[in-house]
């Protein structure tokens, strides 16, 4: 590492986004904006054909996202060897190598796979999980996202390397209720069950109280005085245990090794393909936060995904499938219990009620 007294020699350039033009493969540069169509010769491989007739093959492989410089260097080695020194990453943390040479594809795949980078994630497969920082870095997680991700993908591996799902499947997992992993066809997210305990000792000194009060979605936080010191209290009947206050004020301890549970959400969709984008819905909660394999969670995840796999029609995303069969059948087929917590009670709850006599028996 560098010396203790650091003398700056470089004058900051607020350069913003780095110029990307020298990061583009020459065939890409040439056919930029002039692609004609694509095909998928095999799982994990795309073939794009330009109006010029040029072809480029993309090989997509899984990574651990939380990589090290050595992993990146290894991927650079492969890019140098097979892809003319260029590579890119996808929004789902997969790595992609592009080459105009079909002959490079198989050897590249071999080398990726033998080094633990599965090739897949294209088309109607289960692609990599969008996940978050967890215990590696964040200050508010109740679980670890990298670990949940790893255990999920281990269990779903076959459907990453094959294209046998009804349509592409997007997963996410988040280490606190805030959900930086975003919505997805299926998401595993922390769900607290117990209002924050207040650490009155430190609250006054480490929290901006008005900010914490303002953060609460249901106005459950009130000023109070404890042992003569100004502090905060939570009206427990109002509190919806979201943990938002904890982000603003670490003295409002929402996390608990037992009472911070995991919940499963399904049917989030972002593409506009066919149906409009949709928010995902709660289908299981109260699952134990059980590292390092989260078996209870992964059992439910797998059950849902395999039911979808065998039941949905081509091109139906998770939410579209459920829309067709109805939520009642979804719960029946996945053998999940429906409970009153799954009935919305928040601001726009009315929208989710069955405002009709439509009913299945």
């Amino acid at each position: 590492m560098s010396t203790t007294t650091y003398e700056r020699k470089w004058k900051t350039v607020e350069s913003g986004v780095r110029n990307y033009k020298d990061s583009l493969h020459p065939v890409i540069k040439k056919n930029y904006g002039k692609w004609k169509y694509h095909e998928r010769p095999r799982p994990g491989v795309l073939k794009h054909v330009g109006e010029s007739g040029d072809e480029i093959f993309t090989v997509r492989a899984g990574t651990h996202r939380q990589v090290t410089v050595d992993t990146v260097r290894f991927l650079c080695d492969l890019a140098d060897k097979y892809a003319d020194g260029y590579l890119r990453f996808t929004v789902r943390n997969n790595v992609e190598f592009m080459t105009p040479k079909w002959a490079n594809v198989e050897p590249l795949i071999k080398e990726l796979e033998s080094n633990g980078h599965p090739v897949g994630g294209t088309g109607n497969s289960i692609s990599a999980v969008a996940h978050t920082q967890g215990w590696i870095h964040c200050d508010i997680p109740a679980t670890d996202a990298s670990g949940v991700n790893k255990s999920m993908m281990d269990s779903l591996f076959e459907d990453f390397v094959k294209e046998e799902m009804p349509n592409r499947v997007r997963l996410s997992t988040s280490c606190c209720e805030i959900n930086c992993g975003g919505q997805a066809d299926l998401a595993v997210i922390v769900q607290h069950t117990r209002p924050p305990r207040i650490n009155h000792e430190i609250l006054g000194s480490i929290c901006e109280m008005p900010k914490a009060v303002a953060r609460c979605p249901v106005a459950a936080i009130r000023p109070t005085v404890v042992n003569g010191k100004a502090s905060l209290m939570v009206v427990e009947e109002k509190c919806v245990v979201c943990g938002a206050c904890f982000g603003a004020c670490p003295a409002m301890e929402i996390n608990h090794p037992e009472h911070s549970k995991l919940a499963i959400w399904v049917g989030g969709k972002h593409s506009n393909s066919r149906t409009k984008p949709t928010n995902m819905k709660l289908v299981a909660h109260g699952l134990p936060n059980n590292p390092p394999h989260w078996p209870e969670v992964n059992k439910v995840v797998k059950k849902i995904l395999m039911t979808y796999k065998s039941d949905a029609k081509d091109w139906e995303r998770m939410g579209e499938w459920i829309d067709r069969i109805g939520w009642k059948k979804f719960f029946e087929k996945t053998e999940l219990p429906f409970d009153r917590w799954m009935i919305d009670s928040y601001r726009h709850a009315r929208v989710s009620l069955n405002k009709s006599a439509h009913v299945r028996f």
Partner: protein
Amino acid sequence: MSDKKFLNPTPILDQLEKGPWPSFVKGFKEYAEKSKKPILRGLIDQLEYSYKTKTGYWKGGTVGVVGYGSGVISRFSMVADKIPEAREFHTVRVQPTPGFHYNTKELRKLCDAWEEHGSGIMTMHGQTGNLQFVGITEKEVQPFFDKVNEQGWDLGGAGAATRTGNSCVGPARCEMACYDTLETMFQVMGHYVDQIHRPEYPYKMKFKFSGCPNDCNNSIQRSDIATIGIWKDKIAIDQAEVKNYIQKLSKDYLVNHVAMKCPTKAIEFKGDSMIIDDSNCVRCMHCLNVMTKALSIGKQRGVTLLMGGKGHLKVGNMLGSMVVPFFKMETQEDLDNYIKLLDRIINWWADSALDHERIGETIERVGMQEFLEAAGLQPSLDMVSHPRDNPFFKAEY
């Protein structure tokens, strides 16, 4: 891998070395054994401890680089008494290239700098899009930044700032791209560089750029400002290729899986040919996705602007909604005008928003009508699923 003794035993984490998916534990451990970085041993020990106690042990602080108000997420260990080696473990957020394209030369240089100054762990990429360098001490932050800045990189956003942008692969390798997502992201984020570095907004402001309504960038769900490519004229049909698809997949398949799944039933198969009622097509992309060789996007291209996507705090998940149905985006002038429009919108928000209120929430609070007027946008039916169903409004008289 040779000298296993550098690391302390981590029986729980070790279980995550097995299994077919790439193991971050294995990655960390191998690199730690090789590099012998104490900070890494500290991290791994603390992580093992977290797995055992099911508790996280980082707390925040404030660390940064000279002149910037954001870009570094600082973390101090709460168990530094037990595990002192990762006492400090900050993250440096670096804005990636649009579309996450790299050449190996520049990427290796980044690795080298990071190896020199930090833990060697990097997130490729964060959910917002940053190239995150995870695990550095305060004193190394400035030297590391100076080095990468010299290489042409700059820090990303954090806090109540414009955040790092994100774009899909777009025209670089996708026939669906209706505008240049890469260049647009490059210029738009360039325009807001000051707002990225110095948080001065009511709250965060995220930009995402998707080349078409497939929205491979999750912009509708995950960004305040979603710029999505779209075309105005007709879908181009290659009837010869339609015939090939009929031969390959059968007409029944196309009727059931293309025509019947078209949200507005704008498609008809007649004999061997395909007819699209473009005035009824809502540009959902489905038919183009299935029949890539036969169908292509139109020629009159631009973007549609959706605003207000974000997570559920405090109002429940918000999906962005359409505020500009079509904005031509072919020339530099178009892009300049687009940026002017964004400025107008963002300035309005910066002036009108409550603390910690994202633009979607502000619009919801004041009402779409008021927003449109403030932004000088024309109301249109494209902005709604349906007209209002309540009489609570005061029109002019």
